């Protein structure tokens, strides 16, 4: 039996990734938090915690609550700010041999542009991901991400100041996510990543108070995966730029769903908290899947959804 060495590398425009598995912003810190547990260089890339122009303390606790097959968070975009990021975190990130994508956000269009300008010419930053979709802070992005016009304006402002590929991360908390996707594509976005968390809440029944100090939070984890997959499916059909799928991916099988739907790469989020080495397991799983089926390149899987349901059944793996 011949065995082929399947190629997992993918391209997001000119951004080359050694495999399609990235870690999602806010779930992997600045990367170094996981460095004693996993070999980060094996990842397709990491997306670091969202950076703002100035440091931000974040919301008062409690900031998270577990829900069925998921969790709500209201961290409030706590981060060390651009200057400290460049001084304290970037040198280590520059030593990595994997893609480093910096997630940015601002309170105003000007602040988004200023953060992008601060990253201009900085070596070791492969791309910028704009967060126009955080549900947990007032003006923390979602106000920009729920309107096609302001989404486009933020995208344009960042593109003007940036010398790097710009990915726009979309909010699912909208009526029609395709309208936002089309708008940021027209504005010149390099790629789209989706979805950010879904706004939700939980109540302590005994005390009759919200379980989060922020009252609402963003729902993530396997509970949201079908919703995320559907939105990725819709957006892939609506735009020509590459799409990165995010939302409740826990294993390689979940990742394959997004790739088949047309995502060129995926981001692993909440699963990093549950199993710190899950992204490496996903990479191995994708490799094994391709090799077992003699698939030469992961590219041969991306966007191969056949919309005619197999009358023979839905397969055996459902988790």
């Amino acid at each position, binding site marked *: 039996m011949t065995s082929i060495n399947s190629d997992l590398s993918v391209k997001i425009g000119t951004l080359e990734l050694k495999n399609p598995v990235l870690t999602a912003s*806010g*779930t*992997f*810190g600045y990367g170094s*938090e*996981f460095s*004693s*547990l996993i070999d980060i260089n094996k990842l397709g890339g990491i997306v670091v*915690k969202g950076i703002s122009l100035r440091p931000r*303390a*974040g*919301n*008062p*606790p*409690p*900031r*998270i*609550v*577990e829900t*069925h*097959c*998921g*969790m709500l*968070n209201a*961290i409030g975009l*706590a981060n060390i700010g651009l200057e400290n990021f460049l001084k304290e975190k970037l040198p280590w990130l520059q030593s990595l041999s994997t893609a480093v994508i910096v997630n940015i956000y601002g309170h105003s269009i000007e602040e988004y542009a200023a953060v992008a300008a601060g990253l201009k010419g900085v070596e070791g930053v492969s791309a910028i991901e704009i967060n126009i979709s955080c549900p947990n802070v007032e003006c923390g992005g979602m106000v920009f991400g729920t309107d096609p016009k302001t989404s486009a304006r933020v995208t344009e402002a960042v593109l003007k100041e940036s010398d790097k590929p710009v990915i726009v991360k979309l909010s699912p908390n909208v009526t029609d996510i395709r309208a936002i996707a089309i708008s940021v594509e027209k504005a010149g976005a390099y790629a789209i990543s989706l979805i950010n968390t879904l706004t939700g809440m939980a109540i302590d029944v005994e005390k009759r108070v919200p379980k989060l100090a922020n009252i609402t939070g963003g729902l993530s*984890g*396997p509970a949201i995966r079908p919703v995320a997959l559907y939105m990725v499916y819709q957006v892939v059909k609506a735009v020509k730029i590459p799409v990165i799928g995010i939302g409740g991916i*826990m294993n390689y099988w979940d990742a394959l769903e997004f790739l088949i739907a047309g995502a060129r790469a995926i981001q692993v989020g*909440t699963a*990093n*908290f*549950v*199993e*710190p*080495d899950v992204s490496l397991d996903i990479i191995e799983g994708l490799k094994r899947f391709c090799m077992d089926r003699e698939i030469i390149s992961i590219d041969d899987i991306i966007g191969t959804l056949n919309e005619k349901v197999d009358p023979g059944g839905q397969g055996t793996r459902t*988790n």
Partner: protein
Amino acid sequence: MIEQESEVIFNKKVADGTFLMGLRSYEISSGAKPGQFVMLRVRQSFDPLLRRPFSICGTREDDIFLILYRLVGRGTTILSHVGEGTKLSVTGPLGKGFDIPKPGRKSLLIAGGIGIAPLIFLARKIKMIDLIFMAGYGSLKEVIDLESAGLKVPDIRIATDDGTLGHKGLVTDLLESYMTMSGNEMFKVFSCGPLHMLKRIAAITINSGAECQVSLEASMACGLGACQSCAVKSSSDQGMVYYHVCRDGPVFPAKSIDWKSI
């Protein structure tokens, strides 16, 4: 720090609603310091989704570490049904532990309920002649026999809310009466328990100038410093506004916490 599958050696009830579990891991057992914790997956399932943090309660025979836990919800209920020989995924040891006190000065270990877990581990590192152990519970049936965790403490003082054992009232009453009796003797306090109890202990010790370290509990998703959910407000008016219990703690000098925010 390591992530591995650890075998459950025993999992037994030691008091009403309270269990002691021993897990095999040479790496965690040999590296653990009192006050540190592990993140444990109660089963291979997405519901419940997240790992649970547990203080390390002690170590045995080089390669076994202990956790003491109370049934408080779904996660701990599932854990209480886990049988010997089951393998559970554990990450640890995590966080910063207690500063082990030097001999010659009294150490007061003050526990509230299940907060006794890290203090049992700490007590092993302190000379018995220097040690006073104060433990508060709701009622007699919740009282944990320290010998079941392999610890013999000559000076142990108990308080129960209902007076079914020891002093009727709060464990903080025991601290206050100790301070009245001891005069100017120097001592250190190490405490773990409910936040309102720690708040009271912090107020008493800060007021008297006694050194005090507290171990805090917080909801957390990762335990690694990445999710930033386990925030607790710092008393410092400059620099970091929030500490993260998992990485900056769980043990903190009492004076470094902004108790007004709690």
